[in-house]
């Protein structure tokens, strides 16, 4: 293989966070400046490399790195339009979350360990996004599990350890299922590169039961991370992790890895036609619809802000699965756009929850009364993101819902429209009271004075600037992704590009 820059770029993108991460492990606790510098260098380097790759892919260049790994399955990193959607999302959100985490963990113990694993986690996510075949995907998928576990249990409290145990049980079980599925497919055809339209069409006639079994195993394995209905139990417990971890977990890293895997399996391994021929999309559709409703119903019952957000994730991530399972180009555009939109909105919501907790010690919903007067900017970001979750125009969530609904009608699944309407109503039922409390209710007690809070005045100084800036940044992105959806560089425009290549339009 020639070592040209197009071949090395995918590797560079993975290494740009891996190497700083490994270096950070070696740092002593008090070397704050060096650690921050390493973190930021990694982030900015990756941002530059991803920008370069975006530019290249839009022009039709091919980026592919491969080394021999297994017989019939090389270790392939490649940059196509779909992987770049996910890579860009994780890179941008990593930038925001790194800054947030630096502010959040100021003066907290064990920061070297935290930021080390944090970088590893992002490397695994990016590797998973760039993975060019199932074997590589599996490798990074497992690495992600291992890299996130220390982050979930970072606080070390009994509660955190318990949550970590549950997390590990679920994800390792899911990983085992995925391994079996990948092994089964590998034994059938090896692991060729992901390709639009899939590579299993030749086996459709002869190996039907195997293909169905492999699909069930793969979706079962990926469904754990994507928090599909019976396998979602770890997610609400994992919210004991520090706010930046929750934010990254719910917006990009783990949950999205599962959803992204489902997209890959359906579009690039099986292909649309074989999945339809085998009738595999209908159970997936039913599962996604049930998860959407169930997650919203559970969110309605929560009294803790972060738990509510966690159940909301269960519901919202299934929009992606739903869009994929609808098997039509319009719904697919909605699903891929929602991959980004949900990330932007959910990360904002978790930042806000973190800001409330860090600044004012607000953890429960009932303590949010009148918080809009004390922290107007954070509350504004929260409002925008929550309205996006409900699907109120012109926020990003509306665009996803628009395309998903149209896609459902296009494929003749009108019942899904009902699911979307119900989900919208339930989302409104649990998000609007929060907005009401924030802006309209009167606080039960005066807010703690500046001694315990990080900063004093409402406005730009309402909390530490490192906590406030990422929040406002992602909220603005979520709004812009909705308002400027028609432009070519919006998540929607890019999804359209992917789907045009995928469906050969």
């Amino acid at each position, binding site marked *: 293989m020639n070592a040209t820059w197009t071949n090395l770029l995918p590797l560079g993108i993975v290494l740009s966070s891996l190497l700083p991460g490994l270096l950070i492990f070696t740092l002593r606790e008090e070397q704050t400046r060096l650690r921050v510098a390493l973190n930021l260098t990694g982030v900015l380097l990756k941002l530059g490399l991803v920008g370069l790759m975006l530019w290249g892919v839009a022009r039709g260049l091919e980026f592919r790195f491969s080394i021999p790994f297994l017989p019939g399955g090389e270790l392939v990193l490649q940059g196509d339009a779909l992987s770049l959607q996910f890579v860009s999302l994780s890179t941008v959100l990593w930038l925001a979350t790194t800054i947030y985490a630096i502010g959040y963990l100021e003066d907290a113990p064990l920061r070297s360990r935290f930021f080390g694993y944090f970088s590893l986690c992002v490397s695994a996510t990016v590797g998973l996004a760039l993975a060019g075949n199932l074997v590589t995907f599996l490798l990074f998928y497992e690495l992600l599990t291992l890299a996130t576990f220390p982050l979930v249990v970072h606080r070390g409290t009994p509660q955190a350890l318990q949550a970590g145990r549950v997390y590990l049980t679920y994800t390792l079980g899911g990983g085992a299922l995925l391994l079996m599925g990948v092994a089964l497919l590998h034994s*059938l055809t090896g692991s060729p590169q992901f390709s639009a339209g899939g590579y299993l069409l030749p086996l459709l006639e002869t190996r039907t039961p195997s293909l169905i079994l492999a699909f069930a195993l793969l979706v079962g394995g990926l469904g754990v991370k994507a928090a599909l209905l019976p396998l979602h139990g770890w997610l609400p417990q994992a919210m004991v992790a520090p706010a930046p971890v929750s934010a990254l977990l719910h917006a990009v890293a783990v949950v999205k890895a599962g959803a992204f895997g489902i997209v890959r399996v359906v579009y690039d391994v099986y292909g649309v036609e074989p999945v339809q021929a085998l009738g595999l999309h209908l159970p997936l559709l039913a599962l996604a619809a049930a998860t959407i409703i169930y997650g919203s119903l559970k969110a309605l019952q929560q009294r803790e802000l972060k738990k509510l957000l966690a159940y909301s994730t269960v519901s919202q991530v299934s929009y992606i699965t739903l869009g994929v399972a609808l098997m039509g180009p319009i719904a697919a555009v909605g699903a891929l756009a929602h991959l980004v939109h949900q990330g932007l909105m959910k990360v904002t919501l978790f930042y806000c929850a973190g800001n409330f907790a860090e600044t004012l010690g607000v953890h429960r919903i009932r303590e949010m009364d009148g918080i809009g007067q004390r922290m107007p900017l954070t509350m504004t970001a929260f409002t925008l993101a929550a309205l996006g979750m409900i*699907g109120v125009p012109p926020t990003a969530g509306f665009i996803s819902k628009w395309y998903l*609904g149209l896609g459902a009608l296009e494929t003749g699944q009108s019942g899904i429209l009902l699911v979307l309407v119900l989900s919208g109503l339930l989302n409104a039922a649990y998000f609007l009271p929060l907005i009401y409390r924030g802006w309209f209710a009167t606080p039960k007690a005066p807010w703690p004075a500046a001694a315990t809070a990080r900063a004093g005045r409402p406005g730009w100084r309402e909390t530490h600037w490192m906590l406030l800036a990422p929040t406002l940044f992602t909220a603005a992105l979520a709004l812009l992704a909705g308002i400027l959806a028609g432009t070519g560089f919006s998540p929607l425009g890019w999804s359209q590009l992917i789907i045009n290549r995928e469906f050969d339009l």
Partner: protein
Amino acid sequence: MNGLLWLLVPGAPLLAVVLLLCAGPRRCAGWLWLSCLPALLLSLWPAEPLALPALWPGAQWAADDLLSRAWLGFSALLWACASRFAVTDIASTDHQQRFWLFWLLALLGNLLLVIAADAGSFYVGFTLMSLCAYGLVAHRRGPVPRQAARLYLQLAVVGEMLIYAGMLLRIHEAGGALALEAWRDTPTGAWTAALLLVGFGLKAGFWPLHVWLPLAHPAAPAAASAVLSGAMIKAGILGLWHFLPADDALLQHWSAWLLAVGAISALYGVALGLLQTRSKALLAYSSISQVGYLLVILALAWQQPAYREAAATLLALYAVHHGLAKGALFMGAGLSTRVRFQTWHWLCLALPALALAGLPLTSGAAVKLLFKEGIDAGNLAGWMFLLVIGSAGTMLLMLRLLWLMRASQRQANLPPMAGSQRLPWLLLCLMPVLLPWLWSPLRQAMLDSLPLYAIWAALWPALLALAIGLLVWKQGWQLPPRLRQLPNPARVASVRLMHLLHWPPVPALRKPLDERLWRHSERRWNRLWQVGTVATSAWIIVLLLMLGWLG
């Protein structure tokens, strides 16, 4: 003219939002009314249509026909007057910045939906307006505004979702086209029409979807009620007009039912309005009654596709007439409880009241004449009684309104009216008389209503109502106490729904696993597999390979 000027319509309120956030409400509230100015000017001198593909494919803003221009003009005028009026109206309350923020965003939404030439822009504007109006209704403290606003929001969200579903179905029917122009000729399915009728009906507030109106209007500040009733609820009617096709067999089939709903709404509003003891609640019921007439116009247009052109004109005139008159009356009702009225104030206030009742030389007489023509065109002579009863009822309603306002003037120590409120209010009060002379479509209709027989036709129901009113006054009849406190099932249901959502009656799905039991079984499971790990794994792999080979 340059199409980019349309950007000013939503741009000006946005600019005002920025100004408000930077300078604070005390300094800039008095100038916020200027943000309606671009819309007003563009309604007089419309620019070319503006396509905005950057928002979404097919986004387009324009106002080129009479209906859109009239709608834009009266909305902008009403909002401008109300903005100026609101400055003094809410001067003594807390959270002014919040109020103005919601106000400007609702204004932005309202103007956007009027200039929208595609469904996406309309829906964006409509949602923005609907949700932000919550902040206006909930502005005052206390349980009553809170309950009213809650009911409003619950219904607004439900309506929003129904419209969302209906709109997607409609886009699907139109083969992906978003332009409202294209929808005019696309036949509609039954579900689509039903969803849109209920969704927009919840906003328009005709019977039986009116339940939020009588609660929300008295709770909101007077300026907010004025725009809510004058401009916002009509967005529902405009939505129905734009979203549903002009010539459609299904709607033609349904039009008889819609006529009936409109008629019931018109009479129900009058009947319930007469039972009210607060002037703003009475005006809310009057709005329900007037929206009933607007629904009748829509139904006539669907029933007689040939009549649609004329119906569009009538709809525009009716909306302008009712919007401005109702705005003036709501402001007057708000003023009557706070400032001392002088005689000429009463005279000014009587103008919109009499215009609503359809008295000659006002805009009311003109629209009533056109309305009659519409009913004639539909061969619905039997429905003419509706107009007669309706205008007599409206007259009675207006008499009762003036009576209630006079009663609220009895309290001592009312201050004189502030200059900043007088001007916008007077402008709106004079509109029903001035507008027929200033605006040619209305002028023609008003001149047509001047022959003696037409004047008599307009006058005798009003005189009848006057006589009934005098009789009631002379006899000193009072409302029976039982009718004063009518039960309000909607409010009860709204509170119940809130409780249900706060404490959903879902039991925990299962008890948390006993920790020790779990650990115990885990250990046993581990011990079971301790021997022969490699062999077992090998067996599993062999099994899988066999499966792959067999499959």
